[in-house]
């Protein structure tokens, strides 16, 4: 690596998607500043255009396989591209479901979309990161912008509270993550190598795999602290504790973003570190040294326990909820548990597919919650949904579909995702003779069964109960209709014909292959 000269090849293409989203954010701010309020809804359109352009930029990178840019700071591989597409999709859908909402709420429009774009930029960096510093930065960009978004309805005490809780706990856990990074940095010291210590993930992997390490303890403690940090961001037990309150208080589209985009981004970073760096290629023999296997088995068992705990807590607590946003928050915790199984199984592909499916379904669900809630998040109790089934058949059917898909009903995306994750875990457990992984699968399926109960409660409320008074059929904006159509179709598409998407994932020539060669 050339560090002494100033000749650094700047590969603009490699950061084009992030550049586009960040630039769009800035453009939105500028347009917002110079335009009158009535014209400000152009911000949404601008965001959509920017996202599509960013998508094109991502696709443009599809031929790269594991090339690093910016002195190893970012890497362009299938992992990055797939997750990038997920984030862009999330942002796209969130923009669609926010357009009408933000106007009705009479909140600053330009800043909202700008912050959304910034958050997207952060997510994109998280999936692209090949260095812990980039992960840290991406995480912070995402987090800080979502702190603001949570408190976006400034006059609403619940929104404030949500922002404050998220902020305090978020920064607190970031400190842990950072401390973990520092430890890992320290552990990587090798006077014979250049640079002597590093936060570059590829280098870290090589050093951990082949040794010698400066201090094994530092590495392990660092890994543990990073689990705390990531665990917090993806909301796994026992670090899930913030999410119900934050989700409930945040404006509904923001909740949708939090539970999908930032969760997926955190999972991307999590997987980048714990699947692609701190672990051996699945089924590969130990390359030498015993540190990597030891670390891997430690994190596998810790994460397995966390996964089981997470899904159980999420599901059981969801049963007792009466507020649909809060219920979806707990459901989101449970899903973090299922997705974590993908990391436990060291299979980022099924994790990625899980995230894609989950994102589509969950945004769909939140979109309907948003429509039903009306201005100021007023109708978010499950009781408010009583009997609306036949008064607003389309919405109710769609919501039922999302609920059942979240529960894992075939042939929808939710089932396919769960199936792949559990399959990976089972296969990994059988191949590695790790009974814990089998246990994870069994606990997972039992939890899925439990989850049916509370997901069905929504269906029960909508279709089986007497109609509540005072319900009027909501009108849908075109953008909302588009979002719902996309999510409904996506739910079926991913469940019925996942072959295409899976093939994209499968053809990934990723780091593991590169390292193995």
């Amino acid at each position: 690596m050339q560090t002494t000269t100033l000749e650094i090849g700047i590969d603009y293409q490699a950061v084009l998607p992030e550049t586009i989203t960040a630039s769009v954010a800035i453009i939105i701010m500028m347009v917002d500043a110079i335009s009158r309020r009535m014209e400000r809804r152009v911000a949404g359109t601008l965001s959509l255009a920017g996202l599509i352009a960013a998508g094109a930029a991502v696709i443009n990178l599809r031929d790269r396989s594991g090339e690093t840019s910016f002195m190893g700071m970012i890497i362009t591989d299938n992992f990055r591209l797939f997750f990038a597409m997920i984030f862009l999709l999330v942002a796209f859908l969130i923009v669609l479901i926010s357009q009408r909402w933000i106007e009705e709420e009479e909140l600053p429009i330009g800043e909202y979309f700008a912050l959304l774009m910034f958050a997207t930029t952060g997510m994109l960096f998280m999936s692209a990161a090949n260095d812990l510093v980039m992960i840290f930065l991406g995480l912070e960009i995402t987090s800080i912008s979502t702190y603001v978004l949570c408190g976006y309805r400034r006059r609403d005490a619940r929104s404030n509270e949500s922002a404050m809780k998220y902020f305090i706990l978020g920064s607190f856990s970031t400190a842990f993550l950072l401390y973990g990074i520092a430890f890992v940095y320290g552990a990587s010291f090798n006077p014979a190598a250049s640079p002597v210590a590093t936060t570059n993930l590829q280098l870290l992997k090589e050093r951990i795999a082949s040794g010698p390490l400066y201090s094994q303890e530092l590495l392990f403690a660092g890994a543990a602290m990073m689990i705390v940090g990531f665990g917090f961001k993806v909301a796994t037990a026992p670090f899930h504790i913030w999410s119900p309150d934050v989700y409930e208080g945040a404006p509904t589209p923001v909740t949708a973003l939090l539970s999908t985009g930032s969760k997926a981004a955190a999972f991307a970073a999590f997987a980048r570190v714990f699947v692609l760096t701190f672990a051996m290629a699945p089924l590969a023999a130990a390359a030498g040294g015993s540190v990597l296997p030891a670390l891997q088995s430690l994190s596998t068992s810790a994460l397995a326990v966390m996964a089981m705990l997470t899904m159980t807590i999420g599901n059981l607590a969801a049963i007792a909820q009466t507020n649909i946003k809060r219920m979806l928050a707990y459901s989101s915790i449970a899903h973090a548990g299922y997705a974590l199984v993908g990391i436990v199984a060291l299979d980022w592909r099924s994790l990625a597919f899980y995230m894609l499916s989950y994102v589509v379904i969950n945004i769909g669900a939140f979109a309907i919650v948003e429509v039903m809630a009306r201005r100021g998040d007023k109708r978010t109790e499950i009781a408010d949904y009583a009997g609306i089934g036949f008064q607003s058949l389309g919405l109710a059917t769609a919501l039922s579909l999302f609920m059942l898909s979240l529960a894992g009903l075939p042939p929808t995306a939710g089932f396919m995702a769960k199936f792949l994750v559990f399959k990976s875990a089972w296969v990994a457990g059988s191949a590695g003779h790790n009974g814990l992984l089998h246990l994870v699968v069994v606990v997972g399926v039992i939890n899925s069964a439990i989850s049916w109960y509370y997901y069905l409660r929504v269906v029960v409320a909508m279709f089986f109960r007497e109609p509540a008074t005072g319900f009027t059929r909501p009108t849908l904006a075109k953008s909302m209709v588009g979002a719902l159509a996309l999510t409904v179709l996506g739910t079926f598409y991913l469940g019925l014909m996942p072959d295409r998407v899976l093939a994209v994932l499968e053809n990934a020539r990723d780091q593991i292959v590169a390292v193995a060669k």
Partner: protein
Amino acid sequence: MEKALFIIFAVIAVASALNILLQRNPMYSALSLIGTLVSLSALYIMLRAQFIAAIQIVVYAGAIMVLFVFVIMLLNTPREQSNVDKQKWLRALAIPFAGLLLAEASYVVWRVPARTMPPIDSSGSGIGTTYSVGTKLFTDYLLPFEVTSVLILMAIVGAMVLARRQDD
């Protein structure tokens, strides 16, 4: 000599840090934190991080803490207005949690192999100088550096949006 300096600054840092917790007035807590920051800055110099030490004073102790003090004064809180403490039991957790966390950290630190600082590079381009930091920042850390600009911009937007007056 060095050890004496270390001990002095370390004691100041820890004492100030503890003072943050002991003070009821956030203003005093903020001032205590400045004490910690300054003593850390001194330690940074001992660790051959002159540039970092400098910005620690300028940026951290200066800019950021001033921001804090401003906000504290803006909100006009000479004392904690509300004295509700719904979770007294948390105090009871403080000692065991602190003890455990410290024990775990110390165990890790204890196991870190001993190491002496490398000799100072005579060329003057050793670590910690403005030159070396600058070089590194615009080569290896170019992208992170650029990304921080996005971060800052976003923080400005966010802070603006939240802290604007209500009737805006």
